[in-house]
């Protein structure tokens, strides 16, 4: 939602906002309007609220080396590059001179979790102001030293000069000079003279990653490091029946076998030795399994029958009594996995009463607290350092493997212990995107307009991040087990299972109900876009069904009910660039359209697709996708395109292929063979992204805007191609064939 600010503040906001580059949009933050002299901490924007001192964010050493500190984690979204640009811009240095320290409980501010769309708002804002104030301090100290007016000081690339006087930045700010409070009105540079911020800057990490530089937590090699693996139970309710630890301890290179309740692990000298031990452990352990999972084919029934906490999240109008047509439909989605390419990994070292953990967690401070509880140590004695992992797309196994490493490190103190989850561990034990059911019902009047709309959504929790030790898998496996935090629904307007359940369309009467299902037979948590993927899939499929029932063009039908002009604009742009009205049907091909505004307050995305359905095999293919997005003022067009392309491809994979497989006692999809995802031959033929630029408007989060519309566009395209309506994700070839035969 846009903040209400007056013109002057808006200009300041623009000056602030226009500067930030990157894949990460900046949400409008209300600006402090008090005078500089009395800027209370409470009114500092972004993460300055929790770390108000400049030197929490910027340090300059004696030689002039500049280091930026952020509590946010690099997830592969380019945040480090972006923050460096922000700082370099305000400090008037080449970005290559700026180093960045990210997410380390000992060195950086506490900025909670790195969850996509908030990073620039929280961290970028803080760093920008801190860097701007640092520049002001540098200028005034140089002026004092040179005996000139501040306006005569020229700052450039690490050096302050005035006439013949010169001094490096490192000579000007020493000791405690930067230990001052930030100011909300620090003088930001005029955006018109920006030399790096707002420019498309190539990502700094790509050259290193294509040439094999150490970049990931998996690449860490610490002095004396040894290797661990964990043996997970056969299923969520399995108990250890028999396990001959001595057989494993006798294997070459094994240093220690750890067994604490259902937590079983091994520490070995070399990595391959740990893998061999892991294999052997898997073979010899006997687990007693208790059925606890829904039987095949009963998943959705079990969701509807599970205890639920119901809340009406939106309600207006009253349903008309003289409605002509009432249509309803149910849409369903199974457990789906993050399935990160690099299984989760962590390194931990316990020495004396301290523990250091290197992890790709999305929140080093919450993880620290949880691990401290797990090890029964004070939090100050635990240090969590973020190191990049492979794409996580939400809450994957990162925190859990950190806990595994901490426990194994405690069993082998004094040496860093590296624990790498195996592929099977990640597939079977990561927290999944939860299964969801959306039941929609609409009433149309005689003219075919929607006059009443109801949406009921059932979902498990979309966030079970630590929290406490009970939210770490190992915490629930040790003999003296910890209790998981009681899951609670994420509140609107963001929401969890109910994210995007409220349609943006102007229906005179509607009722949206969230049925929160806290009991999780399989653990679930945040997967990119949370409930928005399924709710938008449902809403946009349903809109299409209603349009078809009334024999109205699906785009006209949507526009008929849409008042938001920016939504109308992207809908129109996508339709036009796709060539919607010029479309000619072809055997086996169909066109599908969908639209959503992420969370009803972030980016707008409209997607038109041409899909092909093979009737013989049931295979569905996206021939081409055309997207139009409105992310407010565009900061980095390439960044937005990347997010939308990636989001469309990933959602195509979820929608066509993905479902976690399980039987009564355990997850059975344990590798890529058992959980196939999209590969190159199934990638869309082409994706074109058209951006609506709105200079002056606040920046809107785009990273999760494409998933829901992509799913619905595919479903609508299939309906257009072969006349079958698919409501159960994924649309596997077998399901499509069944639907065609029916």
């Amino acid at each position, binding site marked *: 939602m846009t903040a209400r600010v007056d013109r002057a503040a808006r200009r300041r906001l623009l000056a602030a906002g226009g500067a930030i580059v990157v894949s990460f949009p900046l949400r409008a933050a209300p600006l402090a309007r008090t005078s500089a002299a009395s800027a209370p901490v409470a009114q500092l924007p972004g993460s300055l609220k929790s770390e108000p001192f400049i030197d929490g964010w910027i340090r300059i050493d004696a030689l002039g080396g500049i280091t930026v500190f952020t509590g946010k984690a690099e997830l592969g979204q380019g945040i480090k590059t972006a923050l460096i640009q922000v700082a370099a811009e305000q400090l008037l240095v080449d970005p290559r001179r700026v180093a960045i320290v990210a997410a380390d409980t000992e060195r950086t501010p506490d900025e909670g979790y790195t969850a996509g769309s908030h990073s620039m708002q929280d961290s970028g804002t803080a760093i920008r102001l801190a860097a701007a104030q640092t520049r002001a301090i540098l200028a005034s100290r140089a002026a004092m030293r040179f005996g000139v007016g501040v306006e005569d000081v020229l700052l450039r690339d690490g050096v302050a000069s005035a006439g013949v006087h010169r001094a490096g930045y490192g000579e000007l700010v020493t000791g405690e000079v930067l230990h001052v409070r930030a100011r909300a009105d620090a003088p930001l540079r005029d955006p018109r003279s920006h030399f790096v911020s707002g420019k498309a800057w*190539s990502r700094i990490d*790509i050259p290193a*990653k294509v040439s094999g530089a150490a970049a990931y937590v998996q690449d860490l090699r610490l002095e004396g490091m040894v290797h661990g693996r964990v043996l997970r139970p056969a299923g969520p309710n399995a108990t250890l029946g028999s396990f001959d630890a001595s057989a494993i301890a006798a294997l070459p290179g094994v240093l220690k076998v750890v067994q604490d309740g259902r937590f079983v692990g091994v520490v070995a000298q070399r990595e391959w030795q740990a893998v061999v031990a892991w294999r052997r452990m898997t073979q010899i352990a006997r687990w007693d399994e208790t059925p606890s999972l829904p039987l095949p084919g009963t998943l959705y029934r079990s969701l509807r029958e599970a205890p639920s906490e119901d809340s009406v999240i939106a309600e207006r109008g009253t349903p008309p009594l003289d409605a002509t047509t009432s249509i309803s439909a149910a849409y369903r989605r199974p457990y789906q996995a993050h399935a990160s390419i690099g299984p989760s990994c962590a390194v931990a070292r316990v020495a004396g009463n301290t523990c250091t953990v290197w992890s790709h967690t999305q929140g080093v401070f919450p993880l620290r607290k949880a691990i401290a509880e797990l090890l029964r140590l004070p939090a100050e004695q635990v240090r969590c350092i973020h190191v990049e992992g492979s794409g996580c797309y939400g809450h994957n196994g990162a925190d859990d493997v950190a806990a595994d490493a901490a426990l194994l490190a405690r069993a082998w103190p004094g040496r860093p212990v590296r624990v790498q989850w195996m*592929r099977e561990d990640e597939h079977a034990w990561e927290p999944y995107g939860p299964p969801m059911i959306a039941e929609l019902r609409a009433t149309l009047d005689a003219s075919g307009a929607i006059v009443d709309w109801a949406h009921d959504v059932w979902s498990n929790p979309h966030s079970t991040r630590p929290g406490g030790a009970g939210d770490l898998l190992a915490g629930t496996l040790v003999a003296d087990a910890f209790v998981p935090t009681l899951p609670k629904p994420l509140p609107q307007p963001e929401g969890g299972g109910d994210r995007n359940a409220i349609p943006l369309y102007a229906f005179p009467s509607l009722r949206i109900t969230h049925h929160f299902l806290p009991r999780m037979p399989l653990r679930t948590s945040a997967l990119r876009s949370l409930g928005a993927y399924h709710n938008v899939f449902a809403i946009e499929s349903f809109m299409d069904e209603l349009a078809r029932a009334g024999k109205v063009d699906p785009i006209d039908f949507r526009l008929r009910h849409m008042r938001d002009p920016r939504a109308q604009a992207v809908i129109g742009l996508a339709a036009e660039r796709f060539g919607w009205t010029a479309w000619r049907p072809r055997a086996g091909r169909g066109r599908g359209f969908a639209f959503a505004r992420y969370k009803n307050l972030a980016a707008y995305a409209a997607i038109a697709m041409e899909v092909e359905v093979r009737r013989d095999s049931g295979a569905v293919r996206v021939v081409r996708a055309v997207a139009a997005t409105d992310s407010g003022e565009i900061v980095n067009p390439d960044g937005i395109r990347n997010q939308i392309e990636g989001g469309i491809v*990933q959602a195509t994979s979820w929608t066509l292929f993905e479902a976690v497989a399980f039987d009564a006692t355990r997850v059975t999809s344990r590798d890529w063979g058992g959980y196939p995802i999209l590969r*190159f031959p199934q990638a869309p033929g082409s994706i074109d992204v058209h951006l609506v630029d709105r200079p002056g408007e606040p920046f809107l989060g785009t990273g999760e805007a494409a998933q829901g519309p992509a799913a619905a566009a595919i479903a609508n395209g299939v309906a257009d191609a072969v006349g079958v309506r698919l409501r159960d994700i994924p649309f596997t070839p077998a399901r499509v064939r069944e639907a065609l035969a029916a």
Partner: protein
Amino acid sequence: MTALAFDVNGRTQSVDVDPATPLLYVLRDDLRLNGAKFGCGLGQCGACTVIVDHGAVLSCITPVSLVVGRRVRTVEGLGRADRPGPVQQAFIDEQAAQCGYCIAGMVMRAQALLERTPNPTDDEIRREMAINLCRCGTHLRILRAVRRAASLLAASVRSSAP
């Protein structure tokens, strides 16, 4: 254990390890090369792709004993961050990476493909690269990078021709 010797990126390496150790762990842990990555250990995702002799090979399922006396190439052998080889340059030009974890494997698979088929069709590229998974959805950029690499490689062959 006897020492096992093989060529890595033009230099002979000799390691004293269990001969059943997958090449992936030898490259990473003994030779400290980061390019080849652990993605699955099952030969299903391609993150560990290297080139042995002339073919792209999944190093996670290739025991080091099989490559004794043979020629292994990793991304580190194709170029450096400040001096990338043609395929690496193409990936940088197309900014064909999001988290980047799969990219070294993609580069090696592309290199092997282009050495064998200098001018592949789009279908050939998709089929050949199919074994390599990307979870971030960077596929279309990677395909563009491979196409670009084909022309960069052809140009470098032309420019080095007598």
